[in-house]
């Protein structure tokens, strides 16, 4: 028996609706086109949610974002990002790997499949949420790319396209240094929790959440989880990540969630869960100590913050 995958089924329905829309008017057509990415449902393996986390609502997770390529405001990027063109989107894979290449995001999805990961997400600013991401673990991609022995770190870069990202046009007046760069040590990158997300809440990533593909490292502060990835490089030297370059006294390379090491300006002991007036204790490595604690044995976490 042949079963049409859900995503194709949805796409076909859209196509039919588009045809019908074309008969009515072009404005109706463009409206349907605009609503298309939100309505497509992805097919993926569901997360059993062993930690029994309660996800925040889609509205909360998609209306409260840090996307400095658009604005330093949390809600402004929601509207501004809708002009992003995220399809097709080629990602470049370079550096110390077997074959340097470019792949379209849909090709990556076809290669590695999709699964759901319900993760805690903790921002360095002191707020947190729980998000059901859809994507694939980074190690699957790394296995495919075959990094060589010189590859000690993985460096990620956000797309630099000033026509798409207004803050990248501002030169000296930009809010941060562009393009945004993040990095992971190879063992962190290969950790089964480290994830490349192309969707959340069963749907493709909303543009403001870093479409079409972003990193999610649940035991690190949110700024490590770089958005709208353009380049993934395997490198020998520790990459200088953007916030470390901005202010190395306040932000480090590791940025592991740690309630015992304060940000110079504020305490990290507690967090504000989105949608709640009360606070909760922040957990060591954001509650993933059992899984990732061994990566940092013997390291002074006050020095390598």
């Amino acid at each position, binding site marked *: 028996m042949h079963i049409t995958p859900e995503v194709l089924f949805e796409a076909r329905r859209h196509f039919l609706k588009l045809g019908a829309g074309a008969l009515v008017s072009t404005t109706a057509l463009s409206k349907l086109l605009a609503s298309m990415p939100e309505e497509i449902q992805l097919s993926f393996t569901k997360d059993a949610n062993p930690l029994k986390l309660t996800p925040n609502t889609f*509205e*909360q997770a998609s*209306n*409260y974002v*840090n996307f*400095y390529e658009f*604005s*330093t*405001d*949390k809600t402004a990027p929601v509207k501004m990002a809708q002009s992003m063109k995220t399809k097709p989107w080629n990602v470049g894979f370079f550096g110390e790997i077997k074959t340097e290449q470019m792949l379209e995001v849909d090709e990556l999805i076809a290669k590695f499949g999709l699964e759901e990961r319900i993760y805690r997400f903790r921002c*360095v*600013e002191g*707020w947190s949420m729980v998000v059901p991401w859809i994507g694939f673990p980074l190690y699957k991609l790394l296995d495919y790319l075959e990094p060589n022995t010189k590859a000690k770190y993985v460096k990620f870069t956000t797309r630099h396209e000033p026509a798409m990202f207004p803050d990248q046009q501002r030169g000296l007046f930009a*809010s*941060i240094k562009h393009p945004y760069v993040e990095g992971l040590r190879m063992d962190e990158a290969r950790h089964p929790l480290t994830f490349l997300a192309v969707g959340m809440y069963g749907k493709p990533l909303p543009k403001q959440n870093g479409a079409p593909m972003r990193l999610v490292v649940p035991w690190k502060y949110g700024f490590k989880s770089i958005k709208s990835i353009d380049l993934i490089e395997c490198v020998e030297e520790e990459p200088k990540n953007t*916030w470390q370059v*901005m202010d190395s006294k306040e932000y480090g390379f590791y940025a592991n969630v740690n309630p015992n090491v*304060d940000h*110079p*300006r*504020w*305490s990290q*002991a507690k967090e*504000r869960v*989105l*949608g*709640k*007036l*009360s*606070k909760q204790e922040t957990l060591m490595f954001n509650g993933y100590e059992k899984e990732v604690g061994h990566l940092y044995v013997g390291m002074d976490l006050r020095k390598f913050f």
Partner: protein
Amino acid sequence: MKTLISLIALLPLGYAYYALESAIDPIKMLYTITGVGAICLLILSLIPSTCKRVCGQNFLRYRKTIGLLSFAYALLHVSVFIVLDSELDFLSIVEKSLKKPFIYVGVIAFAIVLFMALTSTKKRFARFSKYHKAVYIALILALLHSFWAQKVAGVFEYGVVAMSVILLGERIFHLKNNLLYNAP
């Protein structure tokens, strides 16, 4: 007129109350509305005396009302810090206030406006008005506090700094002229 000013100035609080239930980051929203309110009103309270010197209009009678409104916002801001953010954990409040420049700069600014509010009655004002010049220190500290409140400063932070530079600049200019004029 003073009632009208107060009503308009307190409107954002009505909005905050209304928006609280659906707010995504409610504590942060309350911090922002009360903090922005306190700074804007503090700057507004400096305008009457500038106005008198520059355009000859006397609005000085509204200065106290605006100042007290700014204090009301600052008091709410501090309440958010103590009740909601620190959840009445006084040990951590003291620790944060001593250790974090971001916090103690805000605490000092609040102490100054608190002092000004307490000495704003007619009788006390006559005695303490000379110390009310400390409002300039409070303003500068409050601006620093707002710059430190986020990862990087945005339009609001630079906007209020620009306003403050103009208002404080005018005062320095005026003071200098006075000194020259009164020189023997």
